[in-house]
């Protein structure tokens, strides 16, 4: 038992160290390169542990721009991967991902309604609109899939219908009312960007994802019970309807928060859970933390790539997650086939 706890401690420390390292690297990259040691000193200075002399510009860049961005990226990655893992387990479908309930389509409709139609006349931000749209889609799916009684297939179909509906609404608004620049802005936002995220966003996303992770871990054993389907879970004593609606609402909250903040970043929520399952197995008490850690690292790396792949230009993060992620995932799939 002591041995297992030691291993657990070692793995967790190594993971947190890895996350800290990629965040450090991410902070160092940009028009003004900052060495890892400077970033470390800036953090320890702020914590009051050290008092190293640093240039004012370095400190400003680290604190006001890059560190919050990297941290937000880490939490977004963790939240999306967690949501994906829960969706895949509850719906028992390897293709399920955080947006399967139509959340990203709803968020984009909400966003264009604010940006192009000017609903709320400036009082409501794009993020608030996206968040409202995401939850509208979620309730639409919940209604269409007959609340909690519909099975997994019905939920997926309802999600597909909701996505089509909201995407159509988005396209309709963009083509009938938007100008080219607005369409381009919306498009860029949809593909995801960490530009412009600061500490208030960090506080929000870390609170939501932190709460989500804690709630998921408490539900880990319940998620295991879904391995053989809803009926099997029910016969093991799970209140299937209640658990499903709670966990769906939890993932909707995490996903909507993330989408409304940084756009709909694809691929992370689909693939990280598969990679994590390959590495630590399907038992949720290990799988969920692995997803959170893997998602965080992957997203920070993707953010780095989005800034360095093309000089002087930042790619939409969703483009990078797919471009970098698919080859990586192909290798995993290929090796997994050979192993089994």
């Amino acid at each position: 038992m002591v041995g297992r706890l030691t291993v657990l401690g070692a793995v967790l420390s190594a993971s947190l160290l890895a996350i800290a390292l990629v965040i450090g690297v991410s902070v160092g990259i940009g028009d003004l390169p900052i060495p890892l040691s400077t970033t470390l000193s800036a953090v320890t200075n702020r914590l009051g542990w050290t008092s190293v002399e640093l240039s004012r510009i370095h400190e400003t860049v680290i604190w006001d721009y890059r560190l919050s961005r990297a941290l937000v990226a880490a939490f977004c990655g963790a939240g999306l991967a967690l949501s994906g893992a829960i969706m895949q387990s509850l719906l028992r479908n390897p293709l399920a991902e955080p947006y399967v309930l139509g959340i990203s389509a709803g968020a984009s409709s909400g966003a264009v309604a604010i940006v192009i139609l000017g609903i709320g006349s400036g009082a409501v931000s794009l993020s608030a609109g996206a968040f409202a749209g995401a939850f509208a889609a979620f309730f639409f799916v919940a209604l269409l899939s007959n609340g909690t009684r519909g099975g997994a297939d019905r939920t997926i179909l309802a999600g597909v219908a909701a996505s089509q509906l909201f995407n159509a609404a988005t396209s309709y608004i963009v083509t009938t009312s938007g100008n080219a620049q607005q369409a381009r802005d919306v498009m860029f936002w949809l593909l995801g960007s960490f530009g412009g995220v600061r500490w208030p966003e960090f506080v929000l996303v870390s609170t939501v994802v932190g709460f989500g992770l804690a709630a998921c871990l408490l539900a880990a054993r319940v998620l295991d019970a879904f391995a053989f389907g809803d009926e099997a879970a029910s016969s093991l004593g799970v209140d299937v309807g209640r658990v499903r609606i709670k966990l769906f609402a939890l993932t909707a909250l995490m996903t909507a928060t993330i989408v409304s903040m940084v756009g709909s970043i694809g691929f992370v929520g689909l693939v990280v859970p598969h990679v994590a399952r390959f590495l630590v197995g399907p038992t949720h008490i290990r799988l969920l933390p692995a997803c959170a850690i893997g998602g965080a690292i992957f997203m920070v790396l993707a953010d780095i790539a989005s800034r360095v792949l093309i000089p002087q230009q930042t790619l939409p993060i969703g483009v990078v997650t797919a471009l970098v992620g698919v080859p990586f995932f192909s290798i995993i799939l290929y090796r997994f086939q050979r192993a089994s």
Partner: protein
Amino acid sequence: MSIRAEQLTWKIGGKTVLDTVSLEAAPGEMLGLLGPNGSGKTSLLRLLAGLKPPHSGRVMLEREDVRSISRQSIARRVAFVEQHATTNANLKVIDVVKLGRFPHRSMFSGWSPADEQAVEDALEKAGMTGKRDDYWHSLSGGEKQRVHIARALAQTPKELLLDEPTNHLDIQHQIGLLKLVSGLSVTSIIALHDLNHAAMFCDRLVVLRQGRVVASGHPGDVLTEDLLKDVFSVEARVELSAHHARPHIHYLR
């Protein structure tokens, strides 16, 4: 009495699937559920397991109405083995069997010696101890069914409900599985298609047709030539087997 159905009626989309079905199983008894396809065997098992509420009537576990008991408490004493339940998760046999302890654990309780004991006993009874670390996908159909039974036994149930567990198994595994179930000390209610197997292994039989009970009792009393013609639409002669002293059905062309 261990489990009893009283006047159960259950409908789906206006169609009556079960019509005032009553049955009762004594502790330790193996009760066979027979009937043609679509006669309501699976629905009846689901109602007995408390997975669906009946439209009228009730299911009693000893002296308690199932509807007054929480899902978790039901799962502590009634275990259900579904027809071909499978998973795409890459689980080991031991992980699947451990699922059976789910209803006995609270959110924060660790893995107790009692849990360990129940899982070991279940693996042993189902003859899967040697395959504990094998992966689900590497198992044969017969082994998968045994794992499901081990998972059900790990629930330490008083009642075990099985829905056509011998489907798609070869004859060796069919007989092996029925021997396993009939050797258990729990009350079992088992839906079966093979009438000869039911006659050989079950203590009592209940025959359903279009959602109604048309016969029940000891195999020798239930499995008559008239009933086979009437319910199953087959010509047959029923003989008393010289080998196991149970009825043996000889189908005619």
